[in-house]
Every structure is written in structure tokens, then in C-alpha cells.
């Protein structure tokens, strides 16, 4: 026996939530095609109506869900100069309830991973507040592309981690509902029916690399030439980090003038040269190979050592959004394959 919900019932709930002033977030086309031939991306964003939501479970949004918990620009506090005094003004804490509908499991799974970081040596109030205010309904992926590798990092298209409710398509009109948390059960209370139908498990992307092999390489391969040869084409932009559900580096900046201003937290990315540039002009990571090495190490060695979790959910957004097709998967595939390749050549 299982619970099911029809697409109509779900969308009706969405309309009610929007009508009730809640913020509903889900995959949507960012704009109508304008005939320019440019591909119109699907992104997660706040929707103004239920019709905007794309719930097919087929298109992987080009951004991730992290920005609804850890926005790309967040005001920390304001400051005003009052004579010789400085007056600080607190920022209002978020208070709008958020409901995410149609999230991907690989995005939701990133949130518990990020919880460690935002509750580590400092408890980040706004991040935690937004986590509390948000209920997440994910839809199991019905398809995957060549960039997907969730199965390689221990996840899957039906991974319910981080979700409050996981939906699996039974057919075009109905979803099997798997409640993960009480919060999720409360959200869809009364909208589901009990039926004797179970969705078929969607196909999972093939495993692309062995985690053990990768860790072995990372442990002993810091100086390996593959870092350089694999990452030569890296252009040094932040498309990978900014569309990644787990990348969380930020910069603290002051913006203001003689009267006052604000202190804000902005996203930052390890592939930028400026990221590690010292005030002296020295840059400890002075080329893209070193920056890519850092990125992979952080995801698969440093973060796991510190928090016991891999900082990657295998969503593939880094490779998908990279101008030159370079991301975790392409780098890891190349380096994980490296030792054997070298042996066979000798």
C-alpha cells in the first residue's frame, strides 16, 4: 500500500500556498524563448503561479537550491557613521515560509551536508532559520544525462535525504508519495489518497568512478602531473561553484560611503585567481591546476575528514554549466583512471 497524489491536487495545494503568502520555489523556464536561438535555461526560482512549475522531473535546473538558504548576496548588518560613533542596524531575520516543489534529490541531499558547515564553529542564524522555514518536496529523477553521477558518490535518483517528501511518478498524472519527515506529512495532509500502486524505480545513472580509488589518488597524488594535464582548459570562472548545490565559499564585503553602508556576505569561488590572493600580491594557488586540485580535495578529502560527509551529491551541474565541460566528473574520471593508464603505457 502506498500514498499517491495527483498532479492536479499538488498544483491546487501550490495555488493555496501562494495565495497564503508562502514562497513557492520550483523549476521553471526563466523566460519565454525569444527567437534568438539561445537555449532558455530551467532554473529554480520563486513562482508566481502553479502553472509556472515544471514538474516533469526531466530537466535538471541550471542552478541549485542552495541559494534559497544561502543567498548569493546577503546583508549581514548596516552601519552608519554618527559623528565619531558608528551605529549598527541589524538585518531582519527571514520569516517567510518557503515550500520547494519539484526539487531534485541531488539538491535536497546537499542541505544536510551544508548543515555541518553552518553549525560548525559558528551557528549561522539565517541559514538555520531558512532551513526551519522550508519544506522540501522532491521528485525522483525520471531521466539522467551524461553528466549525472549521483550513484558514484553514494546517492541515487530516489535518495530521500534532505527531502521532507519524495514523489515518484506513477504515470503522467500521479505520484507515489514517500513521506520522509513529519513536516512533509503535515504539508500534504489530506491531499493524498491511499492506493495500491507503486511507482517503478527510475533508472539510475551508471557508476562512473570508484570512491575508494579516488580517495587513494587524493591521499598520495598531490604532486601528480594529471592535475595539470586534466585542467589545462579551465578558464577560471565560477560557473561550477555557483551552480553547485554544495559549494559554499563566501566573501565578506563592505559596501558604502562616508555616511554608512552595509556589510554583506557574497558568494565566492575557489577557481577565481582573486580567491587566494594575499594583500602582499603573493598567490599561494597561482594557476588553475592548483585551484582545481583544491576544489577536488575539498570535496572528497578535506570536508569528509572534517565532517564525515562528501561535499558532492553527483548532480553534475559543474560539468553541465562549465564553458569547457570541466567539472568534478571530468576531472575525477581523468585522475581516477590515471594510475592504471600509466601502468599500461609502461
Amino acid at each position, binding site marked *: 500500500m502506498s500514498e499517491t497524489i495527483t498532479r492536479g491536487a499538488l498544483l491546487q495545494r501550490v495555488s493555496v500556498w501562494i495565495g497564503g503568502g508562502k514562497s513557492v520555489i520550483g523549476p521553471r523556464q*526563466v*523566460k519565454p524563448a*525569444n527567437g*534568438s*536561438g*539561445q*537555449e*532558455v*535555461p530551467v*532554473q529554480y526560482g520563486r513562482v508566481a503561479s502553479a502553472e509556472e512549475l515544471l514538474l516533469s522531473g526531466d530537466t535538471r535546473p*541550471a*542552478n541549485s537550491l542552495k541559494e534559497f538558504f544561502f543567498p*548569493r*548576496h546577503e546583508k549581514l548588518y548596516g552601519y552608519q557613521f554618527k559623528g565619531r560613533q558608528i551605529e549598527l542596524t541589524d538585518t531582519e531575520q527571514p520569516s517567510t515560509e518557503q515550500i520547494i516543489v519539484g526539487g531534485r534529490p541531488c539538491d535536497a541531499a546537499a542541505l544536510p551536508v551544508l548543515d555541518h558547515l553552518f553549525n560548525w564553529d559558528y551557528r549561522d542564524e539565517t541559514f538555520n532559520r531558512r532551513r526551519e522555514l522550508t519544506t522540501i518536496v522532491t521528485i525522483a529523477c525520471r531521466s539522467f*544525462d*551524461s*553528466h549525472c553521477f549521483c550513484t558514484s558518490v553514494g546517492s541515487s535518483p530516489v535518495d530521500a535525504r534532505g527531502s521532507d517528501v519524495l514523489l515518484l511518478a506513477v504515470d503522467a498524472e500521479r505520484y507515489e508519495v514517500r513521506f520522509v519527515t513529519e513536516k512533509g506529512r503535515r504539508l500534504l495532509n489530506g491531499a493524498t489518497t491511499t492506493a495500491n500502486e507503486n511507482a517503478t524505480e527510475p533508472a539510475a545513472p551508471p557508476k562512473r568512478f570508484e570512491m575508494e580509488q579516488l580517495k587513494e589518488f587524493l591521499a598520495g597524488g598531490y604532486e601528480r602531473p594529471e592535475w595539470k594535464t586534466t585542467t*589545462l*582548459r579551465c*578558464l*577560471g*570562472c*565560477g*560557473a561550477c*561553484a*555557483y*551552480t553547485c548545490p554544495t559549494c559554499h565559499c563566501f*566573501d565578506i*564585503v563592505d*559596501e558604502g560611503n562616508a555616511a554608512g553602508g552595509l556589510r*554583506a556576505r*557574497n*558568494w565566492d*569561488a575557489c577557481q*577565481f*585567481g*582573486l580567491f587566494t590572493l594575499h594583500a602582499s600580491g603573493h598567490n599561494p594557488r597561482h*594557476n*588553475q*591546476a592548483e585551484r582545481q586540485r583544491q576544489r577536488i580535495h575539498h570535496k572528497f578529502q578535506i570536508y569528509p575528514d572534517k565532517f564525515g560527509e562528501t561535499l558532492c551529491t553527483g548532480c553534475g551541474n559543474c560539468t553541465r*554549466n562549465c*564553458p*569547457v*565541460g*570541466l567539472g568534478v566528473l*571530468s576531472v575525477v574520471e581523468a585522475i581516477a583512471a590515471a594510475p592504471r593508464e600509466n601502468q599500461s603505457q609502461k
Partner: protein
Amino acid sequence: MQNELRQTCRRLLEEGTVQVVIGYGDGTDGQTFPTFVTRRDDVERLVWNERCYTNLATYLTRPEILALGKAAICVKACDERALVVLEKESQIDRSQLVVIGLACSTDGVKQPKCEACENRTPRWANVTIGDAAGETAKTTADRYAALQAFMQKTPDERMAYWKTELARCVKCYACRQVCPLCYCRQCIADKNRPVVISTSATLKGSFAWQITRAFHLGGRCIGCDECTRVCPAGIDLRLLNLSLARAAEENFNFRAGVDVEAEPIVGAYSERDREEFIR
């Protein structure tokens, strides 16, 4: 054609004419990615097909690539214009570069920009591979058709358009990094003592950034549209580039990278430039 490309590159590497070939390599799903071939046996990695989008000229000013030695670079006719500008701006030494021109057949690279393509065969390449499907003459109106349509909107509508578009800008700077002509070692957007352009990905910061990016390419942009292709937020940056390209063509009869003899228009002037808007 792909074989001819591989043979040419093998020869160049064997003879020691170049130490590295900057070309396209195979990716998954038939996608292609920039690749750097330094050993002659690796020329088999090189491909040439309708998905060779990247303008490889962007690598010619990168220290990591310069360190590999004298280079041969694969360019399409549209990409080639970047070489002209780079040379005029003293960023590359043409005599130290072997240019392998790749001619596009009709079923060649398919990108929005291909619609307005007028020249499918590289003109200044040392070696040109393949036969182009013939040239199509385009009028000025064809070149700026997309801009023309956009300019039918009122100024308020245009502003509203950019507000919704740039609200998605996350400042990943992919547009800058992929651009063959954004070669500054320190970008003004990275200048932080003091900050010139707000680094925040707010509308204020994104407007300031995109105005700056477009204007710094004024009279220089060759229209390869790489910025637009790589934008993860799908912002149609092409419109900004087109507006400056059109201003350059209308006012100075200049198109960047089209004429090797023509002097750049920025950094130069004429006493007869128009000034009816100046009081």
C-alpha cells in the same frame, strides 16, 4: 576533413614547427572541449565537427598555455577575427603562431550566431582545412537584426528587460573568462583597493558589471557570442555587444577583426567625429 586536420597537426609537431596544438577534443555525448596536444601520437584526440563551439583564441593569452611553447591554433572564420584584434593590440605575435583554419560546411557549427554568418572560410590562416559551403553576403540590417528587434521596445521596456535578465546574474564571470578579448591580467571588476564595481550579485552590481564588460569590448568585440553561449543564467549578452558593434560600424565604418589593415577605433580618434549630442 578530420583526418586532414590530424595529419597536419602531426606534421607540425613532428617537424617541431610547434610544441602544442590548441584544438578540439572529444567529450561525452558528442560534445567537444578545448584540448592541447603536445605529443604527435595524441593528434588522434583532435576532432572537427558541428559542435566545436569554443573560440580557442581565448587560450592564446593565458600563461599556462604560453608555457607550453610555440602554438598552432584551430580557428573557425568567426573565431579568427579575435586573432586580428589580439594582434592589433599587441597581445600575440602572429609570426610565432601557426593558424589552422577550419572551414565550416553548411551543416557546420550550429549556434545562433551562425544565422548571421557571412564568411565560412578563415582568411588569414597558414593552413586551411575543408571546403566551405560558400559565402552568403549579409547586409548591415541582417547583422543587427536581433538588436533592431530589441530596440523597438521603449526605453522603459528595455530597462525592465535588463532588470529581469540581470537579476539572474550570479557573477560567475564565465562571460569574461571565456572572452578572447578579456585578457587583462587584472580585471577592473576584481579591483578591490578601492572597489570600482560592486562585487555583489545584486542588480546594482550586475548592472555596473555588465555595462563595464560590454563597454570595454566596444569597438573590439568580434561577435563570437561565447559570452552568451556560456552564461549559466541564459542572459542574452549578445544584445549589448551588438549595440556597440553597430555603433562602431555606423559611426566609424569599423568592424572589429574584419580588416587586418584597419586601425582599432578605440585609442584613436578623428577630428571629424560626430558631436551633435555635445553642447
